[in-house]
């Protein structure tokens, strides 16, 4: 797996060849990953791909079948959860219903040798940190979902863990609260600098919050990278398709740097693929460029607008052309551009696929 980030500091969390079996079913296959100190990492992938399984292996709640987990330099592969160093928040929050907010937050502290007054001080501090300074005497059932979520966060942070694990912490909330809390959690994480792993199936969540995203699919890691990396340079067709919208058009390599798509030749980095290799050309709708008729540029051709869907700030158009057989490609045109170029269904226009934004995947991956 390609790793970026600083090479100097050793990784805070290192996962090596972790495999998890449930009976005959392999939920994780040889997963390796490194997380740096203070980093915010998101596990992103469709439901059932093994995100929670990996998180629970890191926590020791469901220990992996094989493979190594190291945290802060120590091998913790076989340790029970109570002997590891992490705080965790679940989708359900799992707040103790019969205890007030304060007692929930204090629950872990009360188990240490900390003096009572210090515990109370720390709880007050934590409640302030999550923005609930005066809800301490309420019971969880008396709070809104968003507030319960913050209490769960405060409780998880109470023991100042080295690692904060969040399993879909926002998915039980409604959209507005979710967007708001996203920013808050990220802000909180940056302030206290705790290494954080969050599981989510929501790409927007991952893209906005993570320092690095780990895209998973069917028990393996497809790609690890910054949000920009993952979005702009998806390593596999799965990542390309799962995150954002991507056009896929089949083609084949004809020479170094040249690919044929339905008879039209495109200039694109073929990354050393041999001529004749079957490939899939991928480009995002927003990367399809529109040109004025007289301009010439690379990978440009005449297309017919077959369909246009108004989406507020832009139009998503389906464009087709004799140039690449009968393949229909989606392209995003800003309202401004549509007005200026008088684009409409049935009309023609000149577009180009800038080589820098084209991704090639070997084989027909559609």
């Amino acid at each position, binding site marked *: 797996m390609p790793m970026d980030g600083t090479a100097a500091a050793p990784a805070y969390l290192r996962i090596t060849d972790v495999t998890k079996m449930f009976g005959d079913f*392999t939920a994780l296959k040889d997963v390796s990953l490194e997380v740096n100190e203070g980093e915010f990492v998101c596990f992103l992938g469709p439901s059932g791909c093994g995100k929670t399984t990996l998180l629970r292996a890191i926590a020791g709640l469901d220990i992996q079948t094989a493979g190594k987990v190291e945290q802060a330099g120590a091998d913790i592969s076989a*340790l*029970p*959860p109570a002997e590891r160093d992490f705080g965790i928040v679940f989708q359900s929050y799992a707040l103790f219903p*019969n205890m007030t907010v304060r007692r929930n937050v204090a629950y872990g502290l009360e188990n240490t040798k900390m003096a009572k007054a210090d515990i109370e001080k720390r709880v007050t501090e934590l409640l302030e940190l999550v923005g609930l300074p005066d809800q301490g005497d309420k019971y969880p059932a*008396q709070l809104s979902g968003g507030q319960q979520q913050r209490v769960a966060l405060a*409780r998880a942070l109470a023991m100042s863990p080295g690692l904060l694990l969040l399993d879909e912490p926002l998915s039980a909330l409604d959209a507005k609260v979710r967007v708001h809390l996203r920013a808050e959690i990220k802000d909180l994480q940056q302030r206290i600098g705790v290494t954080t792993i969050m599981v989510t199936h929501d790409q927007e969540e991952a893209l906005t919050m993570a320092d690095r995203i780990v895209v998973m*699919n069917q028990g393996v890691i497809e790609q690890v990278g910054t949000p920009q990396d993952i979005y702009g340079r998806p390593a596999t067709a799965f990542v390309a398709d799962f995150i954002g919208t991507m056009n896929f058009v089949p083609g084949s390599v004809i020479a170094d740097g040249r690919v044929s798509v339905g008879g039209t030749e495109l200039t694109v980095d073929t990354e050393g693929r041999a001529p004749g290799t079957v490939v899939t050309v991928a480009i995002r709708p927003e990367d399809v460029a529109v040109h004025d008729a007289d301009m010439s540029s690379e990978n440009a051709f005449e297309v017919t607008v077959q369909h246009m869907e108004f989406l507020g700030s832009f139009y998503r158009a389906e464009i087709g052309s004799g140039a690449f057989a009968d393949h229909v490609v989606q392209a995003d045109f800003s309202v401004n551009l549509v007005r200026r170029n008088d684009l409409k269904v049935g009309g023609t226009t000149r577009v180009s696929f800038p080589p820098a934004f084209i991704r090639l995947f070997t084989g027909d991956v559609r």
Partner: protein
Amino acid sequence: MSGAATAAAAAPGARIKPRMGRDDWIMRGAMVAIGLFLVLGVLLPLYTMMSKSLEDSDGAFVGLANYVEYFSTPALFYSIYNSLWISVLSTVIVLVTAFIYGYALTRTCMPFKGFFRMVTLVPLLTPSLLGGISLVYWFGNQGVAKELLLGESIYGPIGIVIGSSYWVFPHALMIVITALAVTDARLYEAAEALRASKVRTFFTVTLPGAKYGLISAAFVIFTLVFTDFGVPKVIGGSYNMLATDIYKQVIGQQNFQMGAVVSVVLLIPAVLAFAVDRLVQRKQVALLSARAVPLVPTPEPVRDWSMFAFCSVVAAIIICMLGMAQYAALVTFWPYNLELSLNNYNFDVMDGGGWEAYFNSIRMSLYTAAAGTLIIFFGAYLMEKGRGFQGGRTAFHMAAIVPLAVPGMVLGLSYIFFFNSPHNPLNGIYGTMLILVLVTVVHFYTVSHLTAVTALKQMDAEFESVSASLKAPFYRTFLRVTVPVCMPAILDISMYLFLNAMTTVSAVVFLYSSDTTLASVAVLNMDDAGDIAPAAAMAMMIAYTCAGARLLHALLTRGLARTTQAWRRR
């Protein structure tokens, strides 16, 4: 889309052997201990009993000789037919009655529903013997309504069927009500929109919806009647049933081997009924999980008042059974001196154990409720919430289900064989209070266990994970979160155990000693000795105590709901 990328097969890396923390050791230890409790309390005694059925009186292995003898003695094997016949008949009667009664309570606007529901709780407060005693006073040789039987004797099948129906009715009704309560109003709206007639709606919507509940109720009734000992003992006369045969073989003739054979014969249909029922119930899950709109019945005078009439008759019968027992207990000398007195409560002048038996019963029931609730709830917690140890937990769950399939008589006899053996190091508990508590906890283990499991399943599955992440030992979370949150279920379990310990006869009848006679056994023995009125009086003592306990339970539950309403969601 792309499945091709995942070509690499799982590397055969070294298997991780999770290190057990302190919590894991304690949990596993406790679970093994409770598992051993079940092995000692159920499996080993049953095994001993079964092997006894293959031995002669000197303990030599004789293969199936005892069974051959059993099946070539018509007086013995004819009981199988009797037991089956009585059970099937009672099942039909009770199922139909309970269904109509339950329907009236859940699906009509019949007046006085609360009263009708309460009346049906009465039989749960009394030993099954009480129904039999009451029948003696109503229809016996000197019964007040003897003529109604047109010359037939109440001592025999008629009495057994009526008496059995009386005491199993509430058990069946509870299941039927639960089944009828789970319905979807939208189905009825759809039926109405399609202009289906009321009768058609009943047969196409109501009955299929309650199908699994009815099947389950049928199995419960059948098993209860088939294995019951109290009713046929009191009112069966010379009509032999399997459960009374065991008693006669063991207590009457000291023929333990034949007792063991009859036990096996009794055990087989009970286990079969149990197994079939569990298979059927598995299918029900899907039906229940759908979110339904509750049905609110609308008034329909003709239906509501016919239901009222029906329920009044059933309620009257139940009240007459209890009322007659109370009346008989107070009458000075039936039927010659009908003056009321408390003479029959002077238990100390009769054989059977006296007042000591009553107080023993209370002690035994309190111990059973306390120890049983503790063991059962904690066991269910370990099974449900423990981490890892999958094999052990599954095995434990299976062991916890077994007692439900074992009739009390069989369990009691098995205990004689197992604990009375001089080779058994636990032999010392034989004849003590401890063995009575043990057998009662085990006898009523399964229902309590399932109640606990249901309550635990409703708790967030991640409490244990969170508490481990906070380095809190599991027992702290158990005491501070699990127990308070599950308190209603815990109270239910202890109540269930207390009531059953007060009223049970079948298992303990083989195990009491002169120091540990019990009230329910005293009822049996006084009845046996012809002191029927004192037997009725003792049965009524049990009924008062159980009613008091229920009242206390209701108050506690209500108080608990009030003090915890701040954090409980409705």
